[in-house]
Every structure is written in structure tokens, then in C-alpha cells.
């Protein structure tokens, strides 16, 4: 059952009272700084655009005609005074927005179109054409903008359109380079490959599959180019290389400068306003650009250093009241652990009251389908949850010490030393610029001097079966199995008491899987550490682990010694998991897949969470949410039908 919202809010208040620093409950809703800046930028640009469009309405005079005495100071008739020809500076400023923004946006558009075409041709065709085009891009980028613009402008002459072309010709290279690398990336996407395999022609693939995935980046690049174009236009005009009859902000500055406005008090109304207008438009574009980039690349959104969140520690006293004392050789005792995620649609309870023990030197398998909460649980055990996830209750006793009550710094002192994690696909996330020896030495140095760590790294690599000749290799030079060995060496470098391995076998071949599995068992025998082996492959890990935990929809549904669970699975889900695998040597028969899919944890089904997929569900199963029952020596299952047996 979903908890009523009042309860969670009450607990929130409680948590906040205890530890306000950790109460980050609704924080995710608050827009990021980038988004706020984006709105600010958009507002500035919109205001400038309105001014430009409504110039004839806003400006009191025609900026081209004299409307007063020359060099008049600001007055009610001339808000910003007049220039040497008696033209109204305020009107010039207003009309200047038209020219500056038009040139900026047109040049940016041209630059983007050129860049996009170059990127598509270079990135998609590849080969020699790519090399040639990218060298041209390099050369263009290597030239300093301003001198190049000046030379081109002097050569091509003056005029609005010429200015646009000149600026675009100089700034197209950056969008071209950025977009080309994105084209390379998109080209490797399988849906692009699929379209090729379906016999689609290149123009179709570019239009349907590649371009749509470049759009966000194109918008970001356009805004960036516009920023530069506005500045370049101003620079050109200031140097007098523009058409002096076009009243742009740069032109105003040019005339102000040539008429020595700097030497008199006139700079305050003749130079400052166009300067500020330029600054505003550049900032407007830049701010908008940041926001668009953040939106286009969601990775920028999650602050990398965001603190792991623990909340409502005080709850463990109330709802985890029945804390069974853990046995003396228990490394980790998890009690009533709850992890929640805040989503726009409500609270998702990804881990819901999970309790188990891991004894010293035991290998425990944690199995279940994806989305059942395995990985969330794993991260929670190390208190590495990221917003919007947080620990909502329960306790985590590592050798009797509740990790939920430790400070962030105390947790850092434990991680990698007492308790160590092999994250999912870690073998693909090794640092590509360090040799494997350096990386193992780095983690070994947590508890040692540099020198000792280097020696230890050597021993560790030998221990995990990497021959001496490969110690100086970089990760990309090693096969997946070898990289996984390196990751294991790093994880055990400080002799942890508990090693948590999240899907360490996924993505490896059968033979390599078997070798890695046996390596883990050997290391357990050597160091006596406990291992929590997280996997979706029950038959694979079931064979080698001591104990099994089967997880479904955020709960442990079956637990026990591996042999008993495999021989006599008591929960229908465990049974279904075992049934779902084709066997290699047994009779070749049709397999029964588990109907349906794991439930949406936003609104898990009432009663037993497995009942919609259970072939044996009764009317009672729809009503009663079964706890774990003892079903045999050391074996528990959360099934009403098993309790009755």
C-alpha cells in the first residue's frame, strides 16, 4: 500500500527537526541556477527584441535627422543628449538594437547552417573528406577572430549583408567541430545502424535519424554564435569598418570615440548606454546558451558533488523498533531499510523494509529483475544514494555500528576500506589516461604510503591474474574480463570486510563470467571477507553463493541458504526465475516466461505484489501483503500459500 502523503510529510518535518542539513526533500523541484539564468537571459533578449521591433514607436526622433543642437547634454527632450550632428542619442540607441540584433542573429544563422552542413558531410561520410574538412576547420579556428574579420571586411567592402557574411565566415568553424563530433556519436547509435540495415538512403537517414538528434545542440550553438557575432559586429563598427550610416551600437561607439567623448563628460550618455546595451545582449545570449546546453545535456544538471542524502534517522527508533541483535560474526545487518525517490508523480518506495544479515566470510547472492530495487539497495548500503533518492528509514549496522548515524566524512573513511563496492559496469569506467597499475595503486594508497601502495598494486594485480607484462597497460588495451579483474583488484586493495559487487558478470562471456566468479570465491577464501553478489542471473550465481536473497518490487521475497532455495524454491517468483532459463544439457522443452512485468513502484498492487503475475494467486493474495514466513530451516518466503503449508 502506498503511504498516505501526510505521513511522509510528517516524517519529513521530523527529519528536518533533527538534521536540517539533510532535509533536501523538495530541493529537486527548485530550478537550477542554470535554468534561472536562462530565464533571465531570455527576458533580456525578449526586451531587446521588443525594443528593436517597436523602435519607431519608442524612439522620439528619427536618428538620422538632426533634432536639436549638437553636443546637447541630456534633457527632457533628449534623454541621452545629442551627438555632434544634433541627432538624438536615445533614438540612435533604440534603432541600434535593430542593426546589432539583426546582424548578430543572421550571422549566427549563416554560421550554423555552414557548420551543420560541414559537420554532416564530414561526420557522416568519414574518410578523407572528413580529414580535409576538419583541417579546414582547424585552420579557421587557429586564426584570431578579430584580425581575420578586419581583413575580410576591408577586402569585401561595407554593408549590412557583407558584415553578416564576413562574421559568419569567421565563426562557423566552432559549431562545425562541435556538431561533427555529435554526428559521429549519433551515427554509432543503433537506430541509425538499423536504418542503414533496412536499406534507407543517406539523405533519409540524415533527415530522419541524425538531424533530430542534433537539434538541441544546434540551438545551443546558434545562441553561442550569436553572442560572438554581436560582439564582432560592434568591434567592426567601432573600428569604422562597417557602413557608418547604419546606426548600430558599434557605430555609436565609433562616432563617440572619434569625437572625443571620452575626454568630456559626454561619455556618460554617449558611450555608456550603447556599451551597456551590448553587454546586456551578450549576457542575454550567454545566459540563454547555458540553460539550453544544460537542457540539451542532462548530465550537466545533476550536480556531481551532491551530498548523499540520509533523512529521518530518528525513524529507525520508531519503526525499526524490533531490532534483532545481530550475531557476533555478522559483518552487515540491514534492518527495515527503506529508500524512496521523489518523482513529479509522487513518492516511489524503491526499497521497502528490507532486512538481512551478511555473516563474515559468506558469499550472499542478491537476485531479481531489473527495476526490483537491487541497485538502489546496493547504493543505499554504502549511503551513496543521489537525489532524488534518499534513505527514508531503517538501519545499516556494519560490525554493529549504525552507518545511518555516521557523518558524511565518517562514511568516506569507511568506503573503500571496511566496505568496498564494485559498481555496475565499472570495468567500462576505468580512467583511460592511467595505467591499470597506477589506478590500483591509487586506491591502495588510501591506507598506505605511495611507495607501499605501488608495491601492493603489483601484488594485487598478480593476485587477480593479470600477468606482469600487462601491468603497464591502459584500460582500452585490455579485454573486458581483464578490466573486470583490475576493478576487483582496486576494490580489495584495502582488505575490506565486505565487498559489494553490482552485476560484476554482466557483459562478459560465459567463460569469462565463470573465471571472474571463481576469482571472487578464491579471494573470499584468502581474505575471509564477505561478498554481496548482485545479479539478475539466478542460476549463474546460485551455484556458487552460500546464501540467496531474492528481491521483487523493493522487497526480499525469499531468503535462505542457496542450496535449499535452488532445490526447493518456495516463492513462486523464485520458481519462475529458475524456470525461465533454458538449460544446456537437460531435456529441450518449452519454457514458461513470467507473464507481465514488474509493477510500477509508484502504485504497487495491493496485497501480495507478485499476485498479478502469479499463476497460483488466490483471493486472499489480492488482499493481504505477506511478510516473510519461515518455511524451512533458515529459509523464508513471503508467500501466503507457503505459510499455509
Amino acid at each position, binding site marked *: 500500500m502506498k503511504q498516505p502523503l501526510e505521513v511522509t510529510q510528517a516524517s519529513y518535518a521530523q527529519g528536518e527537526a533533527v538534521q536540517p542539513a539533510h532535509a533536501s526533500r523538495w530541493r529537486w523541484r527548485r530550478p537550477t541556477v542554470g535554468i534561472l539564468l536562462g530565464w533571465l537571459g531570455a527576458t533580456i533578449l525578449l526586451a531587446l527584441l521588443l525594443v528593436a521591433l517597436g523602435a519607431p514607436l519608442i524612439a522620439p526622433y528619427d536618428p538620422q535627422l538632426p533634432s536639436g543642437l549638437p553636443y546637447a547634454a541630456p534633457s527632457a527632450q533628449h534623454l541621452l543628449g545629442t551627438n555632434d550632428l544634433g541627432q538624438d542619442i536615445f533614438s540612435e540607441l533604440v534603432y541600434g538594437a535593430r542593426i546589432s540584433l539583426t546582424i548578430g542573429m543572421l550571422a549566427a544563422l549563416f554560421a550554423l547552417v555552414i557548420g551543420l552542413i560541414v559537420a554532416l558531410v564530414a561526420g557522416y561520410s568519414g574518410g578523407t573528406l572528413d580529414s580535409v574538412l576538419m583541417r579546414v576547420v582547424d585552420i579557421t579556428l587557429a586564426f584570431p577572430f578579430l584580425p581575420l574579420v578586419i581583413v575580410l571586411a576591408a577586402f569585401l567592402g561595407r554593408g549590412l549583408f557583407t558584415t553578416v557574411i564576413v562574421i559568419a565566415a569567421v565563426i562557423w568553424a566552432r559549431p562545425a567541430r562541435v556538431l561533427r563530433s555529435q554526428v*559521429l556519436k549519433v*551515427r*554509432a*547509435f*543503433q*537506430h541509425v*545502424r*538499423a*536504418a*542503414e*540495415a*533496412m*536499406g*534507407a*538512403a543517406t539523405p*533519409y537517414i540524415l533527415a*530522419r*535519424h541524425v538531424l*533530430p*538528434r542534433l537539434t538541441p545542440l544546434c540551438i545551443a550553438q546558434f545562441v553561442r554564435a550569436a553572442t560572438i557575432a554581436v560582439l564582432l559586429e560592434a568591434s567592426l563598427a567601432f573600428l569604422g569598418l562597417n557602413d557608418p550610416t547604419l546606426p548600430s551600437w558599434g557605430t555609436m561607439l565609433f562616432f563617440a570615440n572619434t569625437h572625443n567623448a571620452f575626454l568630456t563628460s559626454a561619455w556618460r550618455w554617449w558611450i555608456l548606454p550603447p556599451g551597456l546595451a551590448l553587454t546586456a545582449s551578450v549576457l542575454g545570449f550567454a545566459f540563454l546558451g547555458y540553460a539550453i546546453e544544460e537542457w540539451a545535456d542532462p548530465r550537466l544538471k545533476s550536480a556531481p558533488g551532491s551530498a548523499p542524502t540520509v533523512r529521518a534517522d530518528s525513524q529507525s527508533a520508531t519503526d525499526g523498533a524490533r531490532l534483532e541483535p545481530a550475531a557476533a560474526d555478522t559483518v552487515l545487518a540491514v534492518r527495515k531499510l527503506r529508500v524512496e525517490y521523489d518523482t513529479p508523480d509522487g513518492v516511489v518506495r524503491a526499497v521497502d523494509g528490507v532486512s538481512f544479515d551478511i555473516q563474515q566470510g559468506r558469499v550472499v547472492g542478491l537476485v531479481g*529483475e*531489473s527495476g526490483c530495487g537491487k541497485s538502489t539497495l546496493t547504493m543505499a548500503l554504502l549511503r551513496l544514494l543521489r537525489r532524488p533518492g534518499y534513505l527514508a528509514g531503517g538501519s545499516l549496522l556494519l560490525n554493529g555500528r549504525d552507518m545511518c548515524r555516521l557523518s558524511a566524512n565518517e562514511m568516506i573513511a569507511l568506503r573503500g576500506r571496511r566496505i568496498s563496492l564494485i559498481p555496475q559496469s565499472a570495468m567500462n569506467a576505468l580512467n583511460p589516461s592511467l595505467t591499470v597499475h597506477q589506478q590500483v595503486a591509487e586506491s591502495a594508497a588510501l591506507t598506505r604510503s605511495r611507495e607501499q601502495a605501488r608495491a601492493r598494486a603489483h601484488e594485487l594485480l598478480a593476485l587477480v*591474474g*593479470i*600477468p606482469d607484462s600487462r601491468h603497464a597497460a591502459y584500460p582500452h588495451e585490455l*579485454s*573486458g*574480463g*581483464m578490466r573486470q579483474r583490475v576493478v576487483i583488484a582496486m576494490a580489495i586493495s584495502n582488505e575490506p570486510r565486505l565487498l559489494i559487487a553490482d552485476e560484476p558478470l554482466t557483459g562478459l*562471456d*560465459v*567463460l*569469462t*563470467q*565463470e*573465471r571472474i566468479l*571463481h576469482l571472487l570465491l578464491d579471494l573470499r577464501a584468502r581474505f575471509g571477507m564477505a561478498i554481496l553478489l548482485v545479479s*539478475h*542471473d*539466478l542460476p549463474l550465481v546460485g*551455484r*556458487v553463493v552460500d546464501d540467496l536473497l531474492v528481491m521483487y518490487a523493493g522487497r526480499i521475497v525469499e531468503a535462505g541458504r542457496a542450496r535449499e532455495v535452488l532445490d526447493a524454491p518456495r516463492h513462486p517468483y523464485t520458481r*519462475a*526465475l529458475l524456470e*525461465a*532459463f*533454458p*538449460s*544446456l*544439457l537437460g531435456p*529441450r522443452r*518449452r*519454457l*514458461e*516466461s*513470467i507473464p507481465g*512485468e514488474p509493477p510500477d513502484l509508484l502504485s504497487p498492487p495491493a496485497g501480495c505484489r507478485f499476485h498479478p503475475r502469479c499463476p497460483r494467486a488466490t483471493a486472499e493474495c489480492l488482499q493481504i501483503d505477506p511478510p516473510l514466513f519461515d518455511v524451512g530451516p533458515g529459509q523464508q518466503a513471503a508467500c501466503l500459500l507457503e505459510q499455509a503449508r
Partner: protein
Amino acid sequence: MTAVLELRDVSKSFARRAGAQAALAAVRDVSMQIAAAEIVGLVGESGAGKSTLGRIALGLEQPEAGHVVFDGVHLAGLPSRELRRQRQRMHLIFQDPYDSLHPGMRIAEIVAEPLRIAGLPPAARVAPVSEALLEVDLTPPTRYLRRFPHELSGGQRQRVALARALIGQPRLVVADEPTSMLDVSLRVGILDLIARMRTRHGVAFLFITHDLAVARYVSDRIGVMRAGQLIALGPAEQIIAQPQHAYIRQLIAASQGIPPEAAALEHIKED
């Protein structure tokens, strides 16, 4: 027996080039035939050349030596327009159902894509799309047509990929590890669908997997690849019950949980 696909002494090597995209493994002197409505499982470790062979079969890679004959047509030297037309009668299914569907297209558009590429007008695509979705048990189709891939689960997406494969009535589908990223509970469903497509529509499959048990479950014949070579090819039961090659015995032992013996260490040095 009329072969849908015939590979004759096909070889391909790749020069290792800095910055080259996903390096493909080499293939050496591979010959095999796939008949209509036959499922051939291709087993081997990563780097054995399975995927390369699959891409060669579809004409996406040109072999350096040997012939690829698809439905009586030699693929080598075909003008690209003609090659594209041949490809419309084949299909490729990928491992990752998250990556193989365009995130910005609706399910209806995705499934209809082969028809669109073949030049069918929009009106003629509607009925086949619903039929294809029904065929892969995404019922009722109206529930899925307007959705985007991210709104579906991994298993459902792989079904969409199968529907897309089915809709063009291909003669041959190369399925590259179509179940290895799926949860165990969903794998069997996909495997059974593949078997059904073969029975109902006579589609031939080249089914690439590293899992011998999965290959046995779904295939008529199994080929085993190692280091670019096809070291065994025969009826599925025979390959497993009477393994002729030490490497196959090793693969079988590994799947049975027997610790890899000293030979394993040798292999580590190799890779």
C-alpha cells in the same frame, strides 16, 4: 534446400585505426548456408567475429575475400541502390532495445519505417503496423501506436524491434544478442516470438549469442566461432551432446559451473 543466405569462404580483417568506431573483429574463411525458415545460432565469445559475420551477411561490410549470396543474388559489386533494395528484404535486430529505437519517433513510425523506406504511402502503412504489433503480442496495438520508446519497458521495446523486423516480410533476420540485455523473465518471451516468426512467416534467422543454452533453445543448427573462424557447425543437439572441439567442451563446462581449469590461464594471456 534453397539457401536464403550463402557465405562462401568469407574473410575480413580490420586495420586498427586510431579513432575508429567500435572495432570489429576479423573473420577468416567462413562458409555457411542458411535455408528459408531456418534458425542458425552463432555462438562464441566477444571478439570471435560473430557480429562482423552478421554485418557481412547483410552487406553492411564488404568481405575482402569470398562470396555473399542472398537469395540467389551476389551482394559483392552491387550498385548501392540495388544493394539498398536487397537490404529491404533483410533485417538486423540489436542487443540494446534502448538504443536501437529512435527516441524521438512514435512506435507507429518506428514500426512503419521499413515500409516508408520501401516507398509505401502513409495510408498503406497503417494496417500492417497494427498487424505487426499484434504479431509480437503488443495488444491492443492502439495502446502503443502513439507512444514513444522511453514509455515502454525493455521487453516491450525489443518486441517493437521485432515488429519492425517483421513488417517488411524479410527473408533473413540477423539477430545480434537480442536477449542478452533483457531480464531473464523476458528472454523466453522474445525467443518464443522469434521461433513463431520463423514458423508463421518462413523467416530465416542468424541468431548471434554468447550463450550456448539460449542458442540451443531456439536454433535448428549451431555454429561456433572462435578467433574469426567457424570451428563447428551442425545440428544444435549434436553440437552440444557430442562436442567435437575442446573449446566447445570448455564452453559447456563453464555453463555448468565447473571451474575453468589450467587452460583458462592460457586464455587470459591470449586476451
